[in-house]
């Protein structure tokens, strides 16, 4: 852990302690600091156009639940757990509304922005990766999104998804294996 990370963590702990005592200015520091990360997580976990609303709801809930935050995990993964949960709730409501769960499932990753500076092949490869990620089982996708796209550690992913750390490790390996098989299978049929 770098000195900067440690300093941020200390600040978070202080801000959490103050916010818990009812200091709204202290909580606003946390809100300002983590809105972007929470929003990114919501989008990558599939909240789509509702991501801002999910984040707002999660931040209000997080304040209300601060007394339950034990401080062993940092504030960020703890907040992301609430964001992930709110996003899942959203999927359920959407699924009910549309009557078709499948539809919500397919929207679970945002679109790819093609990089004009890159080769067509590289862009195509990324598109295939996104398509394959979309088709993974929800839990497989969630663990890969947390670990690699959101760059959370194993411990942080465990907090964010509410799984034991061992499950994160085994599920990550399995999801990577499946993704690799799918991609290899695709290349096989293409060639």
């Amino acid at each position: 852990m770098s000195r900067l990370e440690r300093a941020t963590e200390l600040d978070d702990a202080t801000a959490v302690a103050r916010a818990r005592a009812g200091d709204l200015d202290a909580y606003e520091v946390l809100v300002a600091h983590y809105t972007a990360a929470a929003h990114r997580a919501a989008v990558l976990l599939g909240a789509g156009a509702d991501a801002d609303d999910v984040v707002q709801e999660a931040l209000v809930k997080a304040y209300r639940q601060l007394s339950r935050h034990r401080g062993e995990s940092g504030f960020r993964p703890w907040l992301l757990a609430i964001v992930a949960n709110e996003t899942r709730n959203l999927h359920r409501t959407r699924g009910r509304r549309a009557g078709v769960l499948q539809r919500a499932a397919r929207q679970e990753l945002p679109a790819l922005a093609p990089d004009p500076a890159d080769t067509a092949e590289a862009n195509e490869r990324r598109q295939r990766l996104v398509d394959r990620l979309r088709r993974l089982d929800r839990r497989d996708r969630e663990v890969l999104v947390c670990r690699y796209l959101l760059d959370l550690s194993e411990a942080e992913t465990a907090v964010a998804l509410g799984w034991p750390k061992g499950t994160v490790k085994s599920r990550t390996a399995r999801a990577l294996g499946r993704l690799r098989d799918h991609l290899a299978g695709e290349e096989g049929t293409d060639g």
Partner: protein
Amino acid sequence: MADRPDDLIAELRALGDHLDVPPARDQRAAVRAGIARRKKTRRWRLWLIGVLVSVAAAIGAVEPARATVVSAVGNLLRVAGIEVRTGPVTLPSSPSPSPLPFEGATTLDAARRAVRFPLRVPAALGEPREVTIADGARVVTFAYRDGRVRLDQCDGTIDPIFLKQAPDARWVDVGADLGLWLPAPHEVTYIDRNGVERSVTARLAGPTLIWSHSVVTYRLEGIATLDEALGVARSLG
């Protein structure tokens, strides 16, 4: 290409930068407003719980009167580790049971050693054939009748750990203790040790009796009638 897992990981890490993530909205003002709104209703609710419990306790055995009181003032009922929100139920999309966090099968003796509260066995149902322990020994579940009947015993000295949404909950007496009877299927959400509400475990529960005795909260699910459920509750040894 992704011939080795490390390449695939690198590709996944890089992928994050290429996905179309719009900028986040500034949430500071909205969150402040949201907190202010919540605070007001929350304070009112806490006050309500106090009133509800004392009113319900004072009225004692007059069942219909209590039911009226509850439906008149209550949209939130609470027994130790369990909080019940009454009102329209939003049913989870998948009605099949899913496990509590970190659930594992065990034996009655092992469960007794693991938990910090006295485990009791209902004589009316006998020794459980299946025993599971969940979330750091916070909840122990006995399963009977092929899993259709469950008895949860929870360390209920902490914040609410189960949230339920049920339109028709009512207070009942379980021996000297106050309990809640939820006759219709309802949604159950578990709050784990980190304080996160796990709607993942939301599932439909059948008729349920909830009560608490000293530090333990009990939740008996799957027994169709209140009389039989009370019989099981009274038979706890």
